């Protein structure tokens, strides 16, 4: 039997607004525990929520970028469940009328395709629990400590349709979504800090036409690598179970990075009963077409469009993808250099190759912290094109530019790296070399072509490496054939 995995992802994105979703507490700053709190986000008796307009703007940006329709009258519901870090013991979220519905995201990678987006809804984050004692995991803990600074930070949940079929696809979707959110400027989108979090719903069935299997929710994956590993593991676990004629239990499992396995919790008695109802503390929203078009008009170029544009400029698709996925300064550098006349293919090559390598070597995180600008790069590429710099000289110039020594021409001159690519000047040196090595020259004339290399070497020695070796070789070859 050929088993098929069916995967859906739920992604929580913390918005990087200044204030929280329903109160004026700071949403962004790392602070001492329980200091960024007020009666509202602490759930004190009598406190009331007032929604943050900017959060709604931002979820609309996300939804429109994901090709969703905007709901005209979205509603906030109360999702009722008790948990110590949920101050009101209900979360203000959305139920049947989320802000955005029915979109899709095109995903590339080895198995490209369109992933359906079921809904994008707005909610509020919970506080943070730290489980103390035992081994730090939730089971076996002796007690928990609660910090409510994160409570009420605006959170957007993006739910896919069960369109993914492999762990690699899940990872590719996750990466593309992260790029999108970054491009929109709505979130810090840092996995390791939890500002973007992925949960996966995984089930396995006996074939593409078979009914869906029992689904298991996996949580606690805080890198793309662990997302891929966890989904791979879970598909394997379920496939193994089913091949042994066992059954998959509907449950939530946690990814254990160290063990490389998902772990089951306590099996829930039936599904949760969240008793959703419209939050009577909030009035309905009304998103008119004007508001929607205003947001639509403010959308930046999205990653997919940018990749296509780069490819149309002649950039290799892999490199285009690398540029779009890379640190934003690199793409900026590329675009600026191209605007100043650099060839797109060569510029992309340099940015994704030499520039990245040089930054890594210098342990620099962002190109924007360095002296390397688009104009310096364009100048460097122009000098290479004119034959003024050898490959190694160009790399040296780049190092100097990054170190802040000045523009490319300035660094090349200061470090004395400009090649002798003047034909007349080189011809003089060649005559001297030929005169010093008449024997080798006559053997070359006799057909021993490998002696060009030897003679070029002599030219390089005389010019202390500054001659353009290509040009020198050509001139010597020309001289030997012109009897």
């Amino acid at each position, binding site marked *: 039997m050929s088993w098929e995995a069916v995967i859906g992802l739920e992604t929580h994105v913390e918005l990087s607004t200044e*204030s929280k979703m329903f109160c*004026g507490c700071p949403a962004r700053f790392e602070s001492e525990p*329980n200091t960024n709190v007020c*009666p*509202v986000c602490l759930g004190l008796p009598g406190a009331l929520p007032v929604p943050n307009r900017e959060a709604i703007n931002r979820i609309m940006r996300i939804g429109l970028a994901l090709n969703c329709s905007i709901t005209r009258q979205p509603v906030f519901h109360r999702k009722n469940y008790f948990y110590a870090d949920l101050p009101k013991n209900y979360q203000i979220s959305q139920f049947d009328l989320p802000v955005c519905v029915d979109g899709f995201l095109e995903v590339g990678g080895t198995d490209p395709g369109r992933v359906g987006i079921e809904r994008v809804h707005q909610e509020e984050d919970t506080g943070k629990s730290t489980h103390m004692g035992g081994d730090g995991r*939730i089971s076996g803990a002796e007690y*928990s400590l609660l910090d409510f600074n994160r409570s009420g930070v605006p959170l957007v949940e993006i739910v896919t349709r069960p369109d993914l079929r492999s762990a690699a696809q899940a990872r590719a979707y996750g990466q593309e979504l992260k790029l999108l959110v970054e491009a929109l400027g709505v979130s810090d989108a840092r996995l390791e800090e939890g500002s973007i979090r992925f949960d996966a719903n995984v089930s396995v069935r006996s074939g593409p036409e078979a009914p869906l299997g029992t689904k298991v929710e996996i949580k606690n994956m805080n890198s793309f690598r662990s997302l891929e590993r966890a989904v791979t593991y879970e598909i394997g676990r379920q496939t193994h179970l089913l091949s042994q004629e066992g059954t998959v239990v509907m449950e939530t499992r*946690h990814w254990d990075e160290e063990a490389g396995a998902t772990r089951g919790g306590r099996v829930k008695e039936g599904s949760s009963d969240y008793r959703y109802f419209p939050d009577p503390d909030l009035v*309905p929203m009304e998103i008119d077409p004007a508001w929607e078009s205003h947001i639509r008009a403010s959308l930046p170029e999205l990653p997919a469009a940018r990749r296509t544009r780069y490819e149309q400029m002649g950039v290799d698709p892999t490199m285009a993808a690398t540029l779009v996925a890379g640190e934003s300064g690199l793409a900026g550098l590329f675009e600026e250099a191209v605007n100043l006349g650099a060839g797109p293919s060569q510029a992309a090559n340099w940015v994704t190759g030499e520039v990245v390598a040089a930054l890594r070597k210098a342990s620099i995180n962002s190109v924007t912290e360095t002296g390397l600008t688009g104009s310096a790069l364009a100048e460097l590429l122009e000098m290479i094109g004119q034959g003024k710099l050898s490959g190694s000289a160009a790399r040296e110039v780049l190092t100097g530019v990054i170190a802040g020594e000045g523009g490319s021409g300035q660094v090349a001159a200061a470090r004395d790296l400009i090649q002798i690519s003047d034909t007349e000047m080189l011809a003089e040196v060649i005559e001297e070399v030929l005169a010093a090595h008449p024997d080798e020259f006559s053997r070359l004339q006799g057909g021993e072509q490998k002696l060009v290399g030897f003679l070029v070497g002599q030219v390089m020695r005389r010019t202390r490496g500054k001659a353009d070796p290509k040009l020198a070789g050509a001139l010597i070859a020309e001289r030997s054939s012109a009897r």
Partner: protein
Amino acid sequence: MWTVFCEPWAGRVTKQTPVNLPSVSVEIDIAHVARLARLDLSEEDLDTYGRQCQELLEHVARIQAIDTTGISSTSHPLPLTNRFREDEVTTESGLGRQDVLDQAPDTEGPYFRVPPALEED
């Protein structure tokens, strides 16, 4: 059809016969409901509350017989929409940490402290 009355008013108003809607039987798994509501009640209390809730629900459940096809629900008494705040940090409603922790039954350092959770939700 609008009857305007002259005095004396007393006794002149039409006594309405209450509309008799059929009573509806309701099954409540009161232990499950108590668990959902996080109420640790004794068997005896569960019995009493179960019976009372049953009676009340059977009374109020009569509204199920009312024809509400095409009727939208009221979730807010005034027709207000789009009440937002701007994205600004306001410190005036913020609380000092002492204010925050003062009323807590149990704390440790700057944190609230609770017994361990059974499962992550």
